[in-house]
């Protein structure tokens, strides 16, 4: 049997949450709105209507490019991409062809670097609603700004893809430019998969694109299915067909949708209704100032600066709001700590524990959180007499655990600590309890 290596690249679409659409003043927030209630001559593609680009959407696309370590192209432009489909009222989509806003970036996830080919801006299409024998068109989504992110074919397995996508989603949310919600369709994924022989340098001469996947785990499953399917075909000495496939969630299988042999010629040409864009160095710098500390940097900093365990830092930094909450709680806690001279150590890790283990919910105000954190973290007054009696009884009742401990299973002690704390109804300092139990067992 030959050894094979998957080659995977990704195309990700992210809908921007700008107030207005990409080329008109209609509201861009179409979710749950009455069909065709947010439309105008421009997004309906009426005769004579003209697109005027949304500056904010362009700035946000630059910001995304910067967050993905891309080169921001000083000269960029829009192009028309022609195809006929009922959801495309002009017969073309305004997109970007050879001068995308950003290109040549990379994202590092779990110490692996994945190349970003390009980041470009385009308009979303209308939504088709199939109803029995009828197909209805809702133009509320038509013209909503859509950012397309294309990666290099740098992925070799589905786990890396999933991790990358999760990181990308967090980055986009950090930038506060999109909900990046898979279910709502504000984030859409299309993996391109092919398989080559291990050691083969050239890319395979075919690729399979999977469309309409609405969760990260389905992306993973569909990739795994495809790798298996394609490998089997290659084993037979054949080449898989270049095509677009869909994913059946119930069966966990992909199925053929459209053969790429009938590949469309989009007849791209520069959008004549919109003058080419020129971005000055100052303009790009100005946008760069809006770039927040990104999740990976923040994780690193929490580990370095606060001495947090990597896993805790990672969890807390998955959401910009949570990280902010954490930092606020920290600083408020420290001020109180100093004032009251309580000398609680490892404040950051302790607060992190409270958050990660959900000891205190984070849907309360930071002040309330800090108050509750104090009662959790302040050493408890311990009724030593009562403690002695309980420990004695529990050692009797848990002979096996005690033996385990004596035989070197040091973790067994934690069970006893837990039991004692329960009996004491939490009114004891866990450290003292632990020491007392060890003392008694010896």
């Amino acid at each position, binding site marked *: 049997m030959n050894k094979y290596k998957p080659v995977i690249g990704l195309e990700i679409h992210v809908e921007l949450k700008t107030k207005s659409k990409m080329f008109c003043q209609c509201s861009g927030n179409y979710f749950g709105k009455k069909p065709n209630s947010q439309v*105008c*001559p421009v997004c309906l*593609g*009426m*005769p*004579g*209507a*003209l*697109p*005027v*680009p949304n500056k904010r959407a362009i700035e946000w696309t630059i910001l995304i490019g910067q967050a993905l370590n891309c080169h921001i192209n000083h000269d960029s432009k829009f192009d*028309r991409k*022609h195809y*006929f489909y*009922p959801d495309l*009222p*002009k*017969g*073309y989509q305004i997109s970007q062809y050879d001068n995308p806003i950003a290109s040549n970036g990379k994202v590092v996830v779990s110490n692996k670097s994945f190349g970003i080919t390009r980041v470009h801006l385009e308009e979303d299409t209308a939504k088709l609603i199939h109803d029995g024998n009828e197909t209805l068109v809702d133009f509320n989504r038509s013209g909503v700004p859509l950012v397309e992110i294309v990666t290099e074919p740098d992925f070799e397995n589905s786990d890396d893809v999933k991790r990358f996508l999760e990181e990308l989603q967090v980055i986009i949310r950090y930038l506060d430019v999109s909900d990046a919600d898979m279910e709502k369709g504000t984030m859409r994924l299309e993996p391109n998969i092919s398989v080559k022989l291990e050691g083969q340098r050239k890319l395979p001469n075919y690729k399979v694109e999977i469309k309409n996947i609405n969760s990260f785990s389905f992306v993973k499953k569909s990739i795994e299915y495809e790798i298996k399917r394609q490998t089997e075909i290659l084993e037979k000495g054949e080449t898989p067909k270049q095509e677009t496939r869909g994913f059946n969630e119930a069966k966990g299988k992909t199925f053929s949708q459209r053969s790429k042999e009938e590949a469309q*010629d989009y*007849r*791209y*040409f520069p959008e*004549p*209704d*919109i*003058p080419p864009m020129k971005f000055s160095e100052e303009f790009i710098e100005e946008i760069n100032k809006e770039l927040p500390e990104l999740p990976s940097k923040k994780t690193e900093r929490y580990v370095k600066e606060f001495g947090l365990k990597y896993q805790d830092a990672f969890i807390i930094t998955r959401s910009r709001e949570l990280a902010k909450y954490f930092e606020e709680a920290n600083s408020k806690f420290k001020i109180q700590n100093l004032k009251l001279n309580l000398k609680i150590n490892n404040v950051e890790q302790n607060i992190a524990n409270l958050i990660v283990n959900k000891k205190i919910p984070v849907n309360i105000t930071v002040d309330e959180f800090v108050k509750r954190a104090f009662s959790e973290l302040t050493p408890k007054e311990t009724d030593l007499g009562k403690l002695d009696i309980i420990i004695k009884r529990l050692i009797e009742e848990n002979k096996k655990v005690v033996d385990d401990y004596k035989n070197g299973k040091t973790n067994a002690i934690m069970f006893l600590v837990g039991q004692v704390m329960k009996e004491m109804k939490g009114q004891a300092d866990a450290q003292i309890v632990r020491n007392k139990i060890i003392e008694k067992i010896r």
Partner: protein
Amino acid sequence: MKILGKSIKEIRNLVDKKEISVNEVFDYFIKRIDKYNPELNVYLTKIENKEESNTGKLFGIPLAIKDNFCMKRIRTTASSKVLSDFIPTYESTVTSRLKKAGALFLGKTNMDAWAHGSSTETSDYGPTKNPWDKTRSPGGSSGGSAVAVSAYLTPAAIGSETAGSIKQPAAWSGVVGLKPTYGRVSRYGVVAMESTLDCPGPLTLTVEDAALILEVIAGHDPYDATTSPIKGENYLDILNKSEKMTIGISDDYFEGVDDEVKEKTLNAIKILEKLGHKTKKIKLIPPKYAISVYTIIQRAGVSSNLGRYDGIRYGNDRGKFGEEAKRRIMLGAYTLSAGYYDAYYKKAQKVRTLIIEDFKKAFKEVDVIVAPTTPITALKLGEFEKYPFFGEVMDQLNEPGAIAGVPGISVPVGLDKKCLPIGMQILGNYFEEGKILDIANQFEKETDFFGIIKKGMKNYE
């Protein structure tokens, strides 16, 4: 009261002096339209419910609008059966600005379907007739607007030009036609032909009226990203400047031009010299090269811009497209196809840049460039079918300026032996509409050529 042949300014004076009411003026034109429209086929849609205002530079002045300008609740067909029932929900920037200035609208005028043509014969609603000789074409594509003015079925009209569609019918119909700089006037709401060339402009009886209308419609439009941020000017004031200019003349623009047209144009140039303007021979890229550049760019744009009429909206399917539109779509789609784009479209854009540079260079030496508007005078109806690329040839003297995007005006300079009007065009530098209006106005004041406009109307008294 004799209104026949009165300019906008003259009508305004009469209204201001209360010698005639706005309503009387409007009704006067409606009656003329009822009488002469059946034989000339100028208006496709009449607008009788006028929305009145009592202020503005054009207060109470009735105008005719080419049928490719969207007007709210008024049928807009671009002379194509594809849009036979299209009633826009919105107003073009040009008509909206005219309305704000107090103008009234008489109706929508016939044109070549989708503005594809130079004779108004590709209209799906029948050709418009030239009032000078009804067996002849008025030119096009703004033929309806030109004839509306020429037969005095309106004191002034709005047209649009991609390459020659204002100036050429103005010349053939014996009126004034102004094509502003690309980006000077908003294209918002104008059914698109080729988006880097299309430009709305007025057709009028006098240069002064053209200046007045330009003053109203020019300027940046937040709905058209290709409009210039450069502010419009008070073109009427500029007319008083009577600046002495250097006129550029390129022999290539007289190449292949009919002798009578050539002679009248040279005669007009002599008059300009007499007025104190200097002439200077210049070398420009010969217009013949512009034909291929223009054809490729325009067809590409057409194939893209007409893609929206896919039969899903607007109630009519693609079978309603006429032959000319289909030919243009096919050629345009071809030049944009993978493998041909570089050889055609991209190359054409490169040559276009050369033509732009050529004009920029020329306007460093001269203030304006003067040339015949068309190589010949009005052709018989039906003749265009004999020639492929008829329009491109008819408009070849207009194409270089269109490709470059510079402004130009066509003014009458006489009649040929067949008693057909001859037009001369004056091209200006980017955004220097003021200069071409100024010199055209000086020419108008000096000569009686504009009298031929009234002569043409004699049959329509």
